[in-house]
């Protein structure tokens, strides 16, 4: 990450170690994941042990230590979505794109993630693609949602 960009983020939180979580979130918003060098720099510039930053980065599910794809697909696995068939949606995407849940396609186009409830339960099962929510999904509808992506391949 650009050193200046990092400094802007660190200064936004007055370089407070208690704001580590927010700092890491801002970095991931910029870089699409948490680059190792940046994590080390954060530890060094805030004067906190790298072990502590690493613990935070691996404890919270929202962080990714590996680069993520251009498109991020998140399938909600909340109870209401589960009862309405969410696991089958995950399997369907895993098969269609040959990517495991939590992983990224080798061409870095798509990352498939699961999340434990986004609070849109009435619309279950729900799939979020690049920030857009798609409700009442089934494998057939999913194919339509993913069509623009498949075209690029």
């Amino acid at each position: 990450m650009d050193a200046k960009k990092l400094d802007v983020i660190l200064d936004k939180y007055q370089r407070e170690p208690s704001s580590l979580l927010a700092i890491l979130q801002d970095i991931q918003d910029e870089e699409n994941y948490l680059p190792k060098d940046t994590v080390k720099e954060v530890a060094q510039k805030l004067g906190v042990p790298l072990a502590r930053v690493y613990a935070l980065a691996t404890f919270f599910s929202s962080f990714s230590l590996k680069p993520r794809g251009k498109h991020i697909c998140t399938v909600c696995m909340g109870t209401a979505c589960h009862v309405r068939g969410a696991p089958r949606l995950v399997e369907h995407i895993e098969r269609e794109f040959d990517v495991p849940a939590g992983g990224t396609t080798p061409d870095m186009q798509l990352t498939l993630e699961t999340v434990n409830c986004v609070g849109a339960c009435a619309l279950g099962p729900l799939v979020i693609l690049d920030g857009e929510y798609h409700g009442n999904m089934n494998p057939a509808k999913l194919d339509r949602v993913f069509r623009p992506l498949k075209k690029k391949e």
Partner: protein
Amino acid sequence: MTVKFKIQGRTYEGTEGESLLGAIRRYGYEVPSLCYHEAVSPYGACRLCLVEVQKGKRRKLTTSCNYPVMEGIEVFLDTEKVVKHRKMVFQLHLAAAPAAKNLKELAAEYGVTSTPFQPADEKNECILCGLCNRVCDEVVEANAISFAGRGTSKRMESPYDETAETCIGCGACVYVCPTDCIGMQEEKNIRTIVRWHRDLPMQTCKTCGRPFAPTFQLNEFAKRVNLDRSRFENCPDCR
């Protein structure tokens, strides 16, 4: 502040707020534990030090390591509940760390010699007690390792599972580990802390020529006490 409390019906004295497990052991009673050590803060991970505590009208099953001694509490050590749950906790431990040294022996002392549970990893020796981490953070203040991940993927690791760069090779973690799974070796004047992938060249004594401490460690000490590095050229025997 000194307070009075009871263990197994007998009255004892203790300092308010001290670890109940520490007090119980001080008076000669035996309670098993794996993640407790007087030198560091209690953590409550292994769940073996279970006791029942009566406070006023309420009676509770609790771990004793992190329970603060208070005026008037009554502690019971081997109730049916304690024995039952402690047995199952041992069984969970045996399945979680089948290769852990000392674990089977301790479990056997309390009558547990097998487990109905399926081991997840036959080779696992680490019981995730966190003692290595707490000793490194609180006593040595090298902060070289930490818990990574959470839930069933929780593990004790050096950052990115690469060389623990701030580890000074003191071996305190190795000493305090209840299952001896960290490993410290020395070969050709290099000390290795195996689990944290840390290789440290040793400094040899100016006088007797023995390798006595990792160079990195001595550099750190010199910085911390703000003394000249030359003060650390001789081993403790030759100083």
